[in-house]
């Protein structure tokens, strides 16, 4: 027997990278977030071997949920194969032994940056959205302590005013992605920089959505079957992106969220942003989608425009 033989093996890294203390803290905070839909829960936010701002908030949530039997889908801008999505998927599966898929309906956990899949998610699935800035009022109040007081007072006057000013100046609301929403009639929330096309998908959804900002150290949730409404004026309804007439060059599909790809002659080609859905359309039978082929949202009357 030598000293080297006697020494215990030092394997260095925990299951799913984070140590148990970190996971327990995240889990405690996730439960509070679910109990307070749309409310930003502060959390410690561990450093991961991925740069801050590259999805470390979402990644921490995923790592606190994931187990070896999970099937994980990771997307960035709707694509499974974009470099950041590929890298995060490689990391998650490497540290957890979970399987991965590009099929939104087969995944148990979907981590996403900037998109919600076109196919309707179902009960039991968890959508983890990466959040660069959790504060919907950042543009009108940069002091986060003051913004927190405004949330406490449900004082969203400045935000309404900002939307109103856009109307006066441009005759329409010019907010693009990250369209602010009211959750369970209490908290205004940033849905993360998803396009307005995806915003309605959070309303009365069957799945659980967890949103996390690693750098800003806040996480929040939209439980299943919860009211989520975009801020809109009675006479100026909320509008999704107008992509009518755009046809996906790969599938011929219409009325799904498209990427616009510039051509050299100044025109544009269009392609669906959700690559998992493209794959399914080409090779299999896709499930129900949030918007039908005519662009109607599945909950009738929710989008008024």
């Amino acid at each position: 027997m030598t000293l080297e033989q006697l020494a215990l093996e030092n394997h260095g890294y925990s299951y799913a990278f984070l140590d148990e203390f970190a996971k327990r803290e995240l889990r405690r905070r996730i439960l509070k977030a679910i109990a307070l839909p749309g409310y930003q829960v502060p959390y410690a936010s561990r450093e991961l071997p991925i740069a801050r701002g590259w999805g470390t908030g979402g990644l921490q949530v995923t790592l606190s949920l994931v187990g070896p039997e999970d099937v994980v889908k990771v997307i960035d801008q709707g694509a499974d194969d974009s470099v950041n999505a590929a890298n995060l998927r490689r990391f998650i599966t490497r540290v957890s032994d979970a399987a991965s898929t590009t099929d939104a309906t087969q995944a148990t956990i979907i981590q996403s940056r900037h998109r919600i899949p076109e196919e309707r998610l179902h009960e039991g699935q968890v959508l983890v959205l990466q959040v660069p800035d959790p504060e919907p009022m950042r543009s009108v109040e940069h002091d986060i302590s003051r913004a927190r007081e405004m949330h406490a007072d449900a004082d969203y006057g400045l935000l309404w005013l900002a939307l109103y000013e856009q109307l006066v100046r441009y005759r329409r609301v010019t907010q693009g992605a990250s369209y602010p929403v009211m959750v369970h009639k209490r908290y205004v929330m940033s849905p993360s920089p998803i396009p307005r096309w995806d915003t309605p998908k959070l309303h009365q959804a069957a799945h659980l959505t967890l949103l996390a900002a690693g750098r800003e150290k806040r996480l929040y949730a939209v439980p299943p079957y919860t009211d989520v409404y975009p801020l809109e004026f009675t006479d100026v309804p909320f509008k999704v992106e107008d992509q009518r007439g755009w046809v996906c060059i790969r599938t011929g599909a219409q009325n799904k969220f498209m990427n616009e790809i510039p051509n050299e002659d100044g025109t544009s080609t269009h392609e669906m942003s959700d690559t998992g859905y493209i794959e399914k359309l080409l090779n299999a039978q896709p499930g129900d989608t949030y918007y039908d082929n005519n662009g109607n949202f599945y909950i009738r009357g929710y989008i008024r425009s």
Partner: protein
Amino acid sequence: MNKETHNGHTSIAERLSVLSQSSAHQVKALAESLLDDLGVIEVLENRTGLVMLPYTDSVQGITFNLGEVLIAEASVRLKDHDGVEGYGSCLGRDHVQALALALCDAALRAGIRADTITAFADARALELIAADQELLRQVETTRVNMETF
């Protein structure tokens, strides 16, 4: 190690401190030479981890966390010697060095080859003190003569 002996007695803790700061190579060799006399060894813990280093603000006197220090640590039990336990830790990530320290600690507590360990530790203590003295001698040469500052 800068603590001088009290009344000529050096405690186990003081010797352990010296051992923790001795070269990994030497401590491992020492522990290796003890193995045959220690009987069955149960390694309870042997890992790397962090020690938070608190610091005291000299202005308001409050304590804050300066940062963490990487250490390796080990706990062992000597099954053939009434289950005497030993603990060792050192700066850095060498968990075998920590195990060697824990074995030295257990041996000292069980009174096994205590003379060997003590002699080793006392020799290292003198080396550490000498190194400190040399550094302080060098530092003294940088003292500013106030008339020329």
